[in-house]
């Protein structure tokens, strides 16, 4: 009941491997699972943890993100007293700027941290997908007497050679070590770029780090804290599956994983729905002769052709004779008569002309950018 956590979402990740998908948008704004954007998952987690004061740190290319979030109404974050605060670089400089790293962003927005009244702060990146109750994480944090708690997962699917951060954690939950972007990770615990601590402590840490000339939270500040051992830093294992969206392939795989009912049930728990921007579409319409199998279909779709093992976003049109297999088709894209798509990702408002064929090689889905005609 007590609202004692302020949330902060960092959307400034540079995820080059997402290529065309993030050319015009932040990772946080990448469309997911038929009707969502990446940020919806972390935002909904916060809402269901009774967090009602949420800051969102944005970088360049945040217009589609702003457009998606609007006034925050869909997340009940449109209040006067609390709600959503967009923290773009431009608030502090004359022009649109760029944060060097999370620490830079925290320093620039130190006033947001100071003005908030909640005792604790939970900070998360936006390229990681999981179901989490931050209030439960706080309970554990308090129980452990921790100064800072880091979220991690033991799941193998999120380990990457040459990338990511991995934690060495003692049996009692204390974090000993962190390795950043190791060629081959030594430790079995993938750090999920999500942590929780007292708000006042974070302000102190940021102040100190800035005077040390640091820019990066994990690679510089956190590593130093682990070396100095002045603080008790604990790990909290994320319950359930987690996904990291950091490349076209992992984007594709993550989406496809949700053709599995267990994954859907875990993330789309009806008592804690994933909230997103509404479109007031009518239900999907299946015509006579439609064939759909093992697919997620959003509202507003009109299906007259064949769809297999695919995810169709809102308002996708599939004309008679068209065949879509193993594909992710984003909002308002139209696939015309007798076209064939396999193993590909079509961004928003693409037009696939009659008889076009686009067959991606296994493991390397083809990406077609927004608004193109093929």
């Amino acid at each position: 009941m007590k609202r004692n956590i302020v949330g902060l979402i960092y959307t400034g990740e540079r995820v080059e491997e997402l290529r065309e998908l993030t050319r015009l948008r932040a990772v946080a704004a990448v469309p997911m699972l038929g009707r969502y954007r990446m940020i919806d998952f972390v935002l909904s987690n916060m809402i269901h943890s009774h967090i009602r004061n949420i800051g969102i740190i944005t970088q360049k290319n945040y217009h589609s993100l702003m457009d998606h979030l609007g006034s925050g109404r869909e997340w009940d974050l449109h209040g006067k007293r609390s709600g959503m605060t967009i923290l773009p670089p431009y608030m502090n400089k004359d022009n649109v700027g760029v944060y060097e790293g999370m620490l830079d962003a925290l320093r620039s927005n130190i006033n947001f941290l100071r003005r908030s009244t909640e005792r604790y702060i939970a900070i998360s990146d936006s390229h990681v997908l999981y179901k989490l109750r931050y209030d439960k994480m706080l309970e554990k944090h308090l129980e452990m007497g921790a100064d800072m708690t880091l979220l991690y997962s033991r799941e193998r699917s999120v380990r990457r050679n040459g990338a990511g951060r991995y934690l060495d954690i003692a049996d009692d939950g204390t974090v000993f070590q962190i390795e950043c972007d190791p060629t081959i990770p030594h430790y079995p615990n993938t750090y999920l770029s999500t942590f929780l601590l007292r708000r006042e402590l974070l302000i102190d840490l940021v102040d100190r780090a800035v005077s040390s000339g640091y820019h990066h939270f994990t690679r510089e500040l956190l590593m130093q804290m682990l070396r100095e051992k002045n603080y008790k830093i604990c790990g909290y294992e994320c319950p359930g599956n987690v996904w990291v969206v950091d490349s076209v392939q992992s984007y594709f795989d993550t989406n496809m994983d949700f053709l599995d009912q267990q994954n859907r049930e875990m993330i789309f728990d009806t008592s804690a729905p994933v909230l997103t921007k509404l479109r007031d579409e009518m239900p999907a319409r299946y015509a006579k002769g439609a064939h759909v199998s093992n697919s997620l279909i959003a509202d507003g779709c009109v299906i007259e052709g064949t769809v297999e093992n695919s995810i169709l976003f809102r308002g996708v049109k599939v004309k008679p004779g068209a065949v879509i297999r193993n594909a992710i088709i984003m909002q308002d894209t139209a696939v015309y008569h007798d076209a064939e798509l396999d193993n590909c990702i079509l961004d928003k408002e693409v037009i696939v002309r009659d008889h076009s064929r686009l067959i991606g090689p296994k493991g390397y889905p083809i990406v077609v950018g927004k608004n193109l005609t093929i």
Partner: protein
Amino acid sequence: MIRKKTCVAMLLAGGQGSRLGVLTRHTAKPAVPFGGKYRIIDFPLSNCSNSGIDTVGVLTQWQPLELNAYIGSGSPWDLDLNSGGVYVLPPYQGGPEAEWYMGTANAIYQNLPFLEQYDPDYVLILSGDHIYKMDYADMLQHHINNEADITIAVRPVPWEEASRFGIMNTDELGNIIEFEEKPKNPKSNKASMGIYIFNYKRLRELLIADEANPNSNKDFGKDIIPTMLAAGDKMVAYNFTAYWKDVGTIESLWDANMDLLTVPPPVNLQDRSWRIYARNIGMPPHFTAASGSVENSLITEGCIIRGTVKDSVLSAGVVIEEGAVVEGSVIMPATRIGKNARVIRSIVSENAVIGEGAVVGAAEGDIAVIGTNTVLPEGATVAAGEQVGQ
């Protein structure tokens, strides 16, 4: 906080709506689900919003909880306003009368103090059981241009059916000169749609006088309109020819759902210039499994289709298990159709469970109905036209 309004809409949400049987035992008629992701009230509310009428009273005394929760702050229809908005209006103490509503005219009469707050020039009277898209602003302009006391929306019905309706006989200028309820020998085929625009001052007078009349039924059709005809009021017909469907009976509710499956549908729900808004409950896209098969149907968010669906309309969160067959049916939110069950030409209400192998409805005969929260046991049979529910 309250500003004068040109036109305020009053939506008569009706009483128990017994013609809808088990469907309205636990909910008000306007809250009945329709067309997969709508409720009936979405149509008049969206029409109001799209017509620029931003102040709506919803008059109800029967099971308002679900309707209340559905309307909420009014934001889905852009009716969460500082000035105006949507209000659910039940009877209350301290008003003109502390009684349950008796008749349509009495319901408005009891809410004259609500109207008074907005000092409107015109009052639009609507019903909560019609499916249609209509620009009330255009009707209002017609009313103003004709300097009418009342404008009644009428639509042409087939001559052979005219004797089943309230028929408006008009002169060549569109003035209503006679009103006949279910005439044996109809002189016109213009049927009243139950949509009225009144000059507020005149409406107020009429309601106060009618209330004092002990012989009145306190009904617009039976009392107010005949009184106006007798009094020589300027009464004008507003012709409406687009799709309009009364969904006050099981048969017509089923028909109207099936209408959405014709190509093109007679009422376009995808028209971006006249959207039908609905409160969205935030479920993921629906999933059609490898074992599923869907044809000529509307399927919405949260559904899981593992069986066969044909010629049907499914609301949010419906689950069709393997081997189940749903044909020519309307399945309302969160209902589960068990394995190998057959649901034919039926309406299954919210949150029901049809047991494995059960058979509901038949290819011939009347529509079968399963009520809200009903659990139909394995292997049970519900005949065509039968209603099962608490």
